[in-house]
């Protein structure tokens, strides 16, 4: 169980003079639900973007299932301005800068903080399109319907996914016409369609009430079991985080300030300080 699926080492993301993520090192083991929490602007989404190839980190490396998928060290002007640590450690490593689709192909799927469904497409097509990456057909066989069998299989799988998410009744509706909670669900369904091993959820419960949040937690547990997933999520709802995650990482101003089980985190004075601030008279 302790096998690393995702491993971040000294990941630093510096935009000009701003260090958004500062020497972040963490591990996510197979079959775990790990949460990344922190106050607003702590750099959580930036960390996600570094993992998924949206940003190229300034320094550090990310490995997935033991293989380095992202690596970099400060170059050019950044060499002088770099404010993080351990830059010499990665100098000998060849920078790896994949595009997001390459990362997804490896088996890391993500959802977005602000929902990014394909607006003009139906619910069904949203999920079906995500299956495009794993399809073996090429543009010729797809156009002339030579690969019709594969297309049929993709449609059946999409239908099964929608059934499981209770979205079948909406399948011909526009994705954006769904209620907010269901749009979040659809985004997860779409991510699942890419057949991931690791699922990155960026604030899956944002904008949900306590009951919906509880349901979402159950749902995450469910898909984790069914698809043998590892889940790494950013979340603000503490009840969700505390109840469902195995381990928690806390970052503030880009720096890791605490890690541990939910009980440990709740008792950690540094975390309380980061969230509530310190009062002068103490």
């Amino acid at each position, binding site marked *: 169980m302790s096998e690393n699926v995702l491993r971040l080492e000294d990941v630093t993301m510096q935009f000009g003079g701003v260090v958004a993520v500062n020497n972040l090192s963490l591990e996510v083991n197979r079959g775990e639900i790990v949460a990344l929490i922190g106050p607003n602007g702590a750099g959580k989404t930036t960390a996600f973007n570094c993992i998924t190839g949206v940003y190229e980190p300034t320094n550090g490396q990310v490995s997935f299932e033991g293989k380095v998928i992202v690596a970099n060290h400060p170059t050019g002007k950044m060499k002088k301005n770099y404010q993080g640590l351990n830059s010499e450690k990665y100098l000998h490593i060849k920078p790896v800068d994949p595009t997001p689709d390459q990362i997804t192909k490896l088996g890391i799927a993500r959802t977005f903080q602000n929902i990014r469904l394909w607006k003009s497409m139906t619910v069904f097509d949203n999920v079906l*399109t995500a299956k495009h990456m794993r399809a073996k057909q090429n543009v010729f066989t797809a156009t002339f319907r030579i690969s019709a069998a594969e297309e049929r299989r993709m449609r059946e799988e999409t239908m099964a996914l929608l059934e499981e998410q209770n979205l079948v009744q909406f399948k011909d509706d526009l994705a954006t016409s769904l209620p907010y909670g269901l749009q979040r669900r659809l985004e997860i369904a779409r991510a699942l369609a890419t057949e991931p091993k690791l699922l990155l959820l960026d604030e899956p419960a944002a904008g949900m009430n306590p009951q919906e949040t509880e349901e979402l937690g159950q749902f995450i547990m469910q898909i984790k079991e069914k698809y043998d997933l590892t889940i790494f999520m950013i979340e603000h709802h503490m009840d969700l985080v505390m109840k469902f995650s195995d381990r928690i990482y806390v970052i503030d101003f880009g720096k890791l300030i605490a890690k541990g089980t939910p009980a440990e985190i709740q008792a950690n004075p540094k975390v309380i300080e980061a969230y509530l601030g310190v009062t002068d008279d103490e």
Partner: protein
Amino acid sequence: MDLRKNKKRDGICTAVALIAMFALLLIMELTMKSTSILFTVLKKGVIYALVAVSMNLLNGFTGLFSLGQAGFMLIGAYTYAILSMPVAVKLSDSVYKYYDCAIGFELGIIPSMLLAGVIAAIFAMLIGLPVLRLKSDYLAIATLGFAEILRAFFQWDAMGPVTNGANVMRQYKDLTKVTIPFTDIRFPPTLFCFLVSGICIAIIVLLINSSYGRAFKAIRDDEIAAEAMGINLFKHKEMSFVISSFFAGISGAMLAMFQYTVQAAQFKSAMTYEILLIVVIGGIGSVTGSCIASFLFIACNEWWLRFLDESANNILGMNLLRSGFRKVVFSVVIMIIVLFFSKGIMGDKEFSWQRIFDFFHKLFHGKKQAVEEVSGNE
């Protein structure tokens, strides 16, 4: 509602409509005078329909605002003219007056047309490598620039042995040279244009409805999400660009056949704007819209508004109607369309038999029942 039954019904309706259209065309061509303006409009309309649909694939379905269509038509037209021109003509100085033609062979009509598409696609691939990394307006500017460069390149003196410089290309195999395979019987020219365009548009529609078409639409809707779901942005954009240019090349070849002569100076950016106008009037993201708009545009431009150019008519004693006045009226019509139908004739919807049937249903059975029917469908 039984969806599968409806699908079958729609398929039959489409097939019947297509057969009827081709039969009607054949009868018209056999009975009417071939110089009739109607045929000119139909031929030019269907050629523009193909290039408009190919532009729609790029602008409407992949969300790439590209303005290079005239350039790719130019490549197609010239490739066709050069390849299909008989060797005897190339050797004599009736066309290549100031140059010695460097292409010492000739090809049939169909191979020339296919190669016209392929050469346009190869150029698109090369241009796409740098250009497709740009977004929105910048992409439009870059493609427009490349189209102009292509035009200048084809008129370049050093290219003379191939392109005949800035001079007119003619005496290649035009529409009158099309014959029914293995015979010497002339193939009806309008029917030929419809057949070629029809096949090309059908292929584009099949592509749009395939998995790749969905990936194109995903890129149009949200690039970041598309990339995160494993769609390689550059690969798919390049694919869309190349395929679109291939069909623009074929329509360029047909335009050359239709016109009997072809000259690089004709393929200015104004031509791209005409095509863009057709796409916008028809509805960005609608294939049927592009087709309808293309016929409307060509008919207005070449036929219905022609009378405005005739200076013989006097209204209120003023010589209002003179050559060029057509363009004024045309501009006003376009402004009205853009102001009041900003999504075009079809929006992003396609022609559907269901809506036609619903319409007639409403007409015959009164409004109330039809509304019930519609709500029942949902």
